[in-house]
Structure formats: structure tokens, C-alpha cells
């Protein structure tokens, strides 16, 4: 069967319906803080057991990509990432919503998500086998440096003072250390509590640190939740498209970053969007506007996180090694369907694979109209619901969402405790973003560092392990560039002014 035949198989009414249903269901689940893409895929997987494998894959892929996109709703409208992938979307999405541009921010997010998703799927379609080798070339040391690159974002997201940003990040790193260390098995900061042995769940931490302060402020201040113009201005599609066109290189670069980071089995959408955001800010004409409602920030974050969907399927399909947590569940579903993944999948089951990839492409495109409509509905609802209803509704959602992560009430207590802590830190001028940066990147940096150290010690060359590998050196170069960029930019500016 030719490739075109697989394409038309992806376009059968049944598959189109699955793609639409998957995108809508995924978007709704992803929009709710606490309910993640992983959970959306896990919960809906049993539904697919009665279907042929390619249909099951299309549905799961559509749910996955929809959920990653849906994370931006809560990020923009409530300053709470709906999924970890949307952390970086809060940086500029929330300020935009606050000043009355929530509708515009949502439309920009749709355009970015669709673009990122399409780039990711196209790279999956055209370059999967060679790209899979990238995943393998990435060793512990590279993960360590990638996490450090992400940590350089502190300087960008520390609103008031860099010191407070670093302090917040250190608190986040400490939170990430709670529990049993994967590498080494040490038990840390559990205070003899059973419940903390497994560590602090990342999603519970996100929900607590971001969402609880928002709810408390909703209750504590008389202002409206979001500023709104005199009348609703529809999708503001032309305006959003203008921003996307202005930021087209940012969009493309972020999509490629997202795809590449998605390919790495130890990374994921949260890191992809953080790294893309850092790069977008560094190369922006007005970096100072980032963090204060720059459309470019949303473009970077949302295109990168949706690009991880296609990227994550590269190692999943080519190597049988899941690129992201939802991929792991989809891989499990494939096994239940009797499909053995691994090096032979692309040749032995090409029909299923290509039908699925085209189906994912179609689902990503369906996200454009579906996302615009859902986004407008979400925006209208959130500005119409009175605060007296909104605050308890959000709080209830966070409780349900956090409980649903592991069906574990301990996660809810942890979430509330961290939320109260984050609110107190906020009073002291320490914002949630650097704290969460530490929570997300801490484990990756730590594991990579310890593994790299162990490997380096075994071969008697620790320095060579950390500083002698080409990819590691490239990332170190990017770290230095990011850290020194303000100095370099000033020097260039001065030189330009000297030579009229």
C-alpha cells in the first residue's frame, strides 16, 4: 500500500471523527489543572481496546496533542499551567489576560500549538529514524547541562530581584529532592513520613504553587479576576496571525526545539517549552517585554510543547523507548493490541504507523477550529462567572485534579501545603515561576549529574565526561551565551553608537 493510501485511510469519516473527539476530550482534560495529558491518555486508553490498532493510535494521539494544547487555557486565564508543559505559557499568557488580552492570548496559543504540532509531526514523518539516533546520543551529562540551560531562565523570570529568583529556585530544588533518590536510594527530607517517601508529585506541586495563590488573591482582593474590554472582540484572529507572522522565526525555532527535546526520553514538554522560551527571550528585539505579556513568549512555549508530541513518537515508534510519559502509555496500549514496537515496527507495520502519523497530522489541524471555538467558550465563561463562584470552583477543581493524579489523598495535602507556602513566599516577593523551575528541573539535573559522575569515575575521566562531549559542549555554549548575552548586547550597542 502506498503512502497516499495510508493518508486516505487517515481521512475516513471514522478516523476524522476519532481525531475530532480526541482533540476535544484532550483539550478539556488538559485545561483542568491537575489533570494532565498523561492522565487523559491513561483514562481513555481502555476505550481503544475494541478498535483496530491504527484507529486506537489516532484517538490516543489526538487526545494527547489536545491535552498538551488544552494546558494553555488554565495557564492564560488562571495563571495555573493545566499540564506541566504549559508552565512557560503562564509567564506571558497571564499578564496578557490580566490586561484584557486573554482572548488574543488564547488565539495566539492555538496558532502556535497547531504550528508546533504540525512541525513535530512532519519531522516524525520525514526524519524519524535518523532523529532517533539523537535520542541515543543524549547521555546523562547532556541531560544535566540541558537542565542547567533551563535553570538560566531564572534571570528572565525573576520579576523584581534576581536574588529572590535564585532563592525561589533553590526552594524548588529542595522540594524536588524530597523522597527516595532514584540514583543512590537515599531517603531525604521525608521527616519520617510514609507519604513523602515517593517524593512530591510534580503535578501536585504545580497546582499548589501556581493555583492556590491565585485563588487566595481572588478572595482577598476586590478587583475583577481579568480586565475585560467594553465588548467581546471575537477571536481577534487577524491580530493573532499578525503576531504569529512577526514571530515566525521564533515560532519555527521553538517548534524545532520542541521536537528535538521531545525526542529525548528523559525530558518532556515542560523542559521543551522552558528552553524554547529562554531562546525566544534571548533573541527577541525587546527581551524586557518578556514576562510582561509578550505574544512571543506564548508563541515559543505553546509551539514547543505541541511539537514534543510528534518528537516524542520518534523514539517511541523507532526504538520502542517512550519519549514522554503519555507515549509510555500508548506503547503499553500497542502491546495490548499485540503490536510489538522496536526497530522493525516501521518496516513490519508500516501501514499502521503511517496511517497513525497522518491521523496525528489531521488531528493537529483539527485543533485549529476546535481550539478557537473552545477557547472562546472558555474565555467567555471565565469572565462571566462571578468571583464568588469562580474561586470555589477553581479550588474544587484543584482538589479533584490533584487527588486524581494517583488516587492518593496525600497528594492533596502536599498540594495545599505547598500552595500555602507559595502564597507566603509571594508576600515576600518570591514568585511561583522560579520555584517551579527548580521543582521541574531539579530531578533531571541531579540524576544526570550523579550518573555522569559515576560513569566518569568508572572510566577515570570525570572532566572529560562533563566537558569533553560535543553535544554537552554545544549546550554549555548556549548556557554561556544566555548568561552573558546582556553584557554582549550592551557591548555591541556601545560599539554601534561609537561608529556613527
Amino acid at each position: 500500500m502506498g503512502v497516499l493510501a495510508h493518508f486516505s485511510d487517515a481521512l475516513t469519516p471514522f478516523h476524522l471523527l476519532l481525531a475530532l473527539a480526541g482533540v476535544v476530550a484532550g483539550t478539556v482534560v488538559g485545561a483542568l489543572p491537575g489533570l494532565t495529558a498523561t492522565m487523559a491518555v491513561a483514562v481513555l486508553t481502555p476505550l481503544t481496546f475494541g478498535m483496530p490498532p491504527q484507529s486506537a493510535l489516532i484517538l490516543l494521539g489526538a487526545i494527547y496533542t489536545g491535552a498538551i494544547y488544552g494546558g494553555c487555557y488554565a495557564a492564560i486565564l488562571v495563571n495555573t499551567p493545566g499540564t506541566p508543559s504549559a508552565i512557560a505559557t503562564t509567564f506571558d499568557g497571564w499578564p496578557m489576560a490580566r490586561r484584557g488580552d486573554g482572548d488574543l492570548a488564547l488565539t495566539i496559543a492555538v496558532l502556535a500549538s497547531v504550528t508546533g504540532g504540525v512541525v513535530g509531526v512532519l519531522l516524525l514523518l520525514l526524519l524519524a529514524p535518523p532523529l532517533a539516533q539523537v535520542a541515543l546520543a543524549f547521555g546523562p551529562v547532556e541531560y544535566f547541562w540541558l537542565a542547567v540551560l533551563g535553570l538560566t531562565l531564572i534571570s528572565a523570570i525573576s520579576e523584581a530581584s534576581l536574588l529572590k529568583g535564585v532563592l525561589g529556585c533553590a526552594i524548588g530544588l529542595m522540594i524536588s529532592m524530597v523522597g527516595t533518590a532514584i540514583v543512590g536510594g537515599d531517603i531525604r527530607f521525608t521527616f519520617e513520613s510514609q507519604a513523602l517517601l515517593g517524593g512530591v508529585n510534580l503535578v501536585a506541586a504545580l497546582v499548589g504553587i501556581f493555583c492556590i495563590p491565585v485563588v487566595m488573591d481572588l478572595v482577598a482582593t476586590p478587583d475583577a479576576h481579568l480586565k475585560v474590554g467594553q465588548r467581546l472582540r471575537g477571536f481577534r484572529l487577524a491580530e493573532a496571525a499578525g503576531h504569529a507572522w512577526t514571530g515566525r522565526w521564533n515560532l519555527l525555532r521553538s517548534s524545532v526545539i520542541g521536537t528535538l527535546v521531545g525526542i529525548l526520553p528523559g525530558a518532556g514538554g515542560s523542559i521543551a517549552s522552558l528552553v524554547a522560551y529562554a531562546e525566544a527571550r534571548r533573541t527577541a528585539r525587546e527581551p524586557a517585554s518578556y514576562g510582561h505579556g509578550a505574544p512571543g513568549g506564548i508563541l515559543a512555549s505553546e509551539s514547543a510543547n505541541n511539537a514534543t508530541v510528534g518528537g516524542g513518537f520518534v523514539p517511541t515508534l523507532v526504538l520502542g523507548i517512550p519519549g514522554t510519559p503519555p507515549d509510555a502509555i500508548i506503547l503499553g496500549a500497542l502491546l495490548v493490541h499485540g503490536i510489538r514496537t522496536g526497530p522493525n515496527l516501521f518496516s513490519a507495520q508500516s501501514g499502521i504507523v503511517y496511517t497513525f502519523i497522518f491521523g496525528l497530522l489531521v488531528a493537529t489541524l483539527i485543533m485549529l477550529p476546535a481550539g478557537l471555538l473552545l477557547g472562546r467558550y472558555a474565555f467567555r465563561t471565565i469572565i462571566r462567572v462571578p468571583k464568588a463562584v469562580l474561586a470555589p470552583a477553581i479550588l474544587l477543581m484543584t482538589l479533584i485534579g490533584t487527588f486524581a493524579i494517583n488516587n492518593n489523598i496525600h497528594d492533596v495535602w502536599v498540594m495545599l501545603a505547598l500552595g500555602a507556602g507559595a502564597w507566603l513566599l509571594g508576600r515576600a516577593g518570591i514568585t511561583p515561576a522560579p520555584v517551579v523551575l527548580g521543582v521541574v528541573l531539579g530531578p533531571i539535573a541531579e540524576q544526570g549529574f550523579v550518573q555522569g559522575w559515576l560513569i566518569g569515575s568508572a572510566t577515570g575521566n570525570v572532566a572529560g565526561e562533563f566537558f569533553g562531549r560535543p553535544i554537552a559542549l554545544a549546550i554549555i555554549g548556549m548556557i554561556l551565551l544566555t548568561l552573558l548575552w546582556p553584557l554582549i548586547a550592551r557591548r555591541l550597542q556601545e560599539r554601534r553608537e561609537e561608529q556613527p
Partner: protein
Amino acid sequence: MRRRAFAAALGVLAALGAGVAGPAQAYPESDLTYVIPFNAGGESDVTARLQEPAFREITGQGFIIQYLVGAGGATAWTQLNAMPADGSTIMGVNLPHLWLQPMQGKVGYQTDDIAIVRLFQLTPFALIVPGDSPIETVEQFIDEAKKAPGAITIGGTGTHSAPHVAQAFFDQAAGIKTTYIPFTGTAASTAALLGKQVRAQWAYPTVAVEQQDAVRMLAVAMEERHPLFPDVPTFKEKGFDFVDGAYRGVAVPKETPEDIKKKLSDIFGQINAQEAFAKNMREGGYVLIDVGYDEVGAFMAEGGEKYREIARLLGLVE
């Protein structure tokens, strides 16, 4: 949005949390809640999903699969005995986790607290190198390790876990020293092996089933050769008394009535005997075992002794 969102969330909760108890007459009279202590999509989950059609054929009921993930399974096992003890709730169990975790202390259960009704599956340990590694045999591996003690890096899942046990045990048996590098899961440690970040891996034949020629198994820790890999020797053939692996089984809350425990044990035995299920498991590289209700006690006691020794090797106990 909010309203629909709320309805969706309730739906999700209902799907996750449902599960109705049924007393023992014609057990089981309703779907069972099957708690998996690991992530969806993992080997425990896939096994449970594959067991379900067979379970349905035998009993007419199905599973409601729940995930209670955390602390390498300890989160779920700590809570097992607080769950309904009427046969409505069963839980996946894994060895050697149940032996090793309480020895490390600080988990909220003791090995004897867990009422295992049957062990049904084994993934034997296997020593794996990349497909193009110059090391082709166990002997070469040992020579290489003796030449430069500690220089061979071996990836595996987690610290004080099944692959870590394999590494410690084999190092001692062969009189060698290797460096164990823990990863977050089998997928991560396999990626590290394929990318040559580590030189070898302690894992299972399931890895070789997936990766085929990209990896080479040097030996498996089984009594007989693995049916899918007739060319791969056992450690026994190489002169090491090393037959072990990661076991899976099913447990119930301790207070569950005896007759239900026995019945459940028999049902899971029948699932193993079902040809479609067995074929699927075999092709995935799993080994089916049948440690029934009457034999589990002795099996656990014997293994517990052995693992106290191994815990000493790992430095977990004095």
C-alpha cells in the same frame, strides 16, 4: 467550560474510582478493582490488561484497573490492608521489591503483611550488551571486568532494585567489580545502553525481544534456556548458580476470607493456562510460573532468606 469541565472531571473520577463489592457466594459477582502499583503502560499494567480477557472468559467479570503509583510500589503496598477485604479489591505485587523494601526500613509495610495469593510471572535477569559490542560471551565480560576493576558501567532500573540485586550478586559470584548506574526505568536504561552511555545492562529478555539485533544477551538467569533465545546460554551453564529475576503476582488485603483467596489463586492459575494469554506472554519474553496459594508461603520464606544475604551485599543491612 467550567460546567463541562466539572462534569468531565467527575466522569474521570468515576472511571477511576468505581468498583462495587460483591460477597463470596459465586465469587466474583462483579468486576474486580485491580490496583497496579506502577504507571499505566508499564509491564505490570500490560500484563493486567492482557489478563483481563482471560479473566472475563473464566468468570464473566472484568477488571477495573486503578493505578496507585509511588515509591517503587511501596505507596500501594502500604495501603493494601486498609482496602476492602471482601475479594472486591486485588493488587499486583512484585518481587524482589517486597523483600528488599522492608529491609531498607522506613516503608509502611512488612513483607509478611502482604497476602499474596499467587505468583504468575517471571522476568528472568539477563546480562545485556549493545549488539555491536566486542564482548560476546560471559567469559569475555568477566575477563574485561578483571582487567580494569570498576571500569565497566552497567545500567539498570533504580537503586536497591531487582537489576541492582543482579549486579551485586553476579559481581560477587564472578569475583569482579563493575559500576552500577541507576536509571529511572527500563526504557531509560535501555536507551542508555543503545546510545553506548553504559557498556552493559542488567535487565530482562523482554528488552531483547523489543530491541532484537540492536542488543546481545550474554546469558539469562534461568534453569533452562529461554525458548525465544535458544542460542543464549544460562548462567548455570556457565557455572554460576544464578536463577532469579523479577516476579509478578497478585495479593489481597490480609482479612480477605480464605475461600476467596483460594478461588482467586485458582482463577489466576487458569488465566496462565489459557493459550491466547500464554502465547502473548511468551512472545513478549515473559516466563509464566505457577506458584499457587499453598506454595506461596514456602516460596516467600525461602526467597526472604536469600534476599537477606543479598541485602547484606548491597549494604542495606548489617
